[in-house]
């Protein structure tokens, strides 16, 4: 139950993108079409879970005993960056099919702030390992959801006569605003 709650809150109530403004760069950049946004979403999910699985033990079994918790930022970002690199190398060499589908998104992920935020929050909220993983999945699927939804709206806007001064990025933010208004409906759903 507790896990389900963590998951749902991360997915809907506190949606990373729409309610917490994380990972906006890729949200704006990678939602040109639905397929692309799904690809990016799964790539992020994959890396987020991997990053959580890597940073949680490092923090609790290395940094805490050594009294080096203040190196959290540095260590985490390094770990994530290296992870992404390794994954990229690995995919390129061994699973080229998947790399072709996902590889182009990987470099963008290093600087995706949602992933780093999740790893920090796992520590800040004092989640256990399992909880951290669930949280990571919830957040990144929330990201995927927001990406796909925006891609859907964008698809529709491709042929609509949006006023000139809003064309391009501005209207994306207006659309996100209204997506956020709708998502407000989930607020208070889980107390």
């Amino acid at each position, binding site marked *: 139950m507790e896990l389900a709650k963590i998951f749902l809150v991360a997915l809907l109530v506190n949606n990373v993108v729409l309610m917490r403004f994380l990972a906006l760069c890729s949200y704006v950049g990678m939602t040109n079409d639905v397929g692309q946004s799904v690809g990016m979403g799964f790539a992020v999910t994959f890396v987020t879970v991997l990053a959580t699985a890597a940073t949680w033990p490092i923090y609790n079994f290395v940094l805490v005993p050594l009294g080096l918790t203040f190196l959290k930022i540095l260590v985490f970002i390094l770990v994530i960056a290296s992870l992404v690199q390794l994954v990229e190398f690995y995919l390129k060499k061994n699973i080229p099919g998947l790399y072709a589908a996902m590889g182009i998104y990987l470099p963008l992920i290093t600087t995706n702030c949602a992933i780093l935020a999740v790893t920090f929050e796992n520590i800040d909220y004092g989640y256990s390992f399992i909880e951290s993983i669930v949280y990571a999945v919830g957040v990144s699927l929330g990201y995927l959801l927001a990406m796909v939804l925006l891609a859907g709206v964008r698809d*529709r806007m*491709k*042929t*609509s*006569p949006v006023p000139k001064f809003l064309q391009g990025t501005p209207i994306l933010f207006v659309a996100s605003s209204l997506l956020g208004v709708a998502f407000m409906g989930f607020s208070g759903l889980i107390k």
Partner: protein
Amino acid sequence: MAVKTFKGGAHPPERKERSSGLAILRLREVKLVVVPVNQHFGAPLQPLVKVGDNVKRGQKIADAEGRMTVPVHAPIAGVVKKIEPRTQSNNSEGPCIVIEALPPPAEGQPALAPEELVDFMPPLDPFACSKEEALARVRAAGIVGMGGAGFPAHVKLAPSKPIAVVIANGAECEPFLTIDERSLIERADDVVEGVAITMKIVNAPEGVIAVEENKVHAVPLLEKAIAASPRTRAGMKIRVQLLKTKYPQGGEKMLITAITGKEVPSGGLPMDVGCVVQNIGTLLAMVDAFKEGKPLIERGLTISGGACTKPANVVAPIGTPVADIIAAGLAQVDEEKLGMVIYGGPMMGVAVPNYQIPVQKNTSGVLLLDTVEAKHYDEETCIRCGRCMRACSCRLSPALLAVAVEAGDYKEAEKIGLLDCIECGTCSFVCPSHRHLVQRFRVGKQILRALKQKEAQNAR
């Protein structure tokens, strides 16, 4: 009799009352005809005559090798004056053979003997000859589908699949047009005979003459003709089927679905579901070709529309400029009120700049709309009311299809059925925002086909 129909469609104002009671008139005196060389759906033809040549009525004046070609014949006896590009009824310029009628014999000179004026083929009994002979005759007579598309009839009559039903398309669902209706009434026997000939050629066990409810008065005549026909007495099964009055009931796919309950598969042909559909005009042309050896050199058409003060159903030689039919007094037009000229019906016909353009093999009507009827609208944004989707006779999603085409997403457009659209125009008719849907689909199809061709080339 159960009244059958299909799902979707619309009810544009019929306006048939203006001409449905008028007997077919025949245009006899023609001074000049402009015969487009290419009047069929298929490879282009070569003229067989030169400027200055004398031609007889019914003489072949253009032809070419190839399965999908159909010859063209001289509609009148006369002299070839010019062979030059002229505007045709599809608005494009194409080579036309201009023939001037022979002047009436000068004073004291004897009139020319009929053999010198007319060049018909010998009659042929379709029930006695072989299938090949019959098909050769159909081609030699220059018969193409007269319901609109101009598809070579001899190709359609040689299907590669067994045929269960021959359908005579008497739906005539286009508003204003009444020529098929008049033909059903005035030449019921020949219609039945035409169906029988078709059944014989394609070896079909059943024939159906399909008419919309608004022509229900033709049914008794047809039934009488069926009963009296030597063919049915000889055991051929022919019946009449009433259909709901609804546009586009006459589209062959809709017709087949209404009558047989089957759907022509996407990208397929009627023969895939064991059907052959023939327009009434086509049937009559076949009867003439066999009985009299007369090639397709004249056709019936309706002249009507708000600016047409005297509408008419006429039979005129192919190539006659419509203006000449009017000048001959068969129909009248009020120039003041005239706002639009359409060759064909208001739903699928082509708007042309004037009515000088000649009658062609597929011209089923010429509409002279007044300025009120001619009102067209600039499109507004789609309000997504969904009317087009409910009306589409092919159950496509015109609103979504239009979005895909507009966005240039031809892959998606093809997936959701761009190439399945039969361009019936129902969607544009029902759209409260007056979206130019069909036009968009036509352009889209053109581009999509070009893209596919390119792709195929690249693949090679």
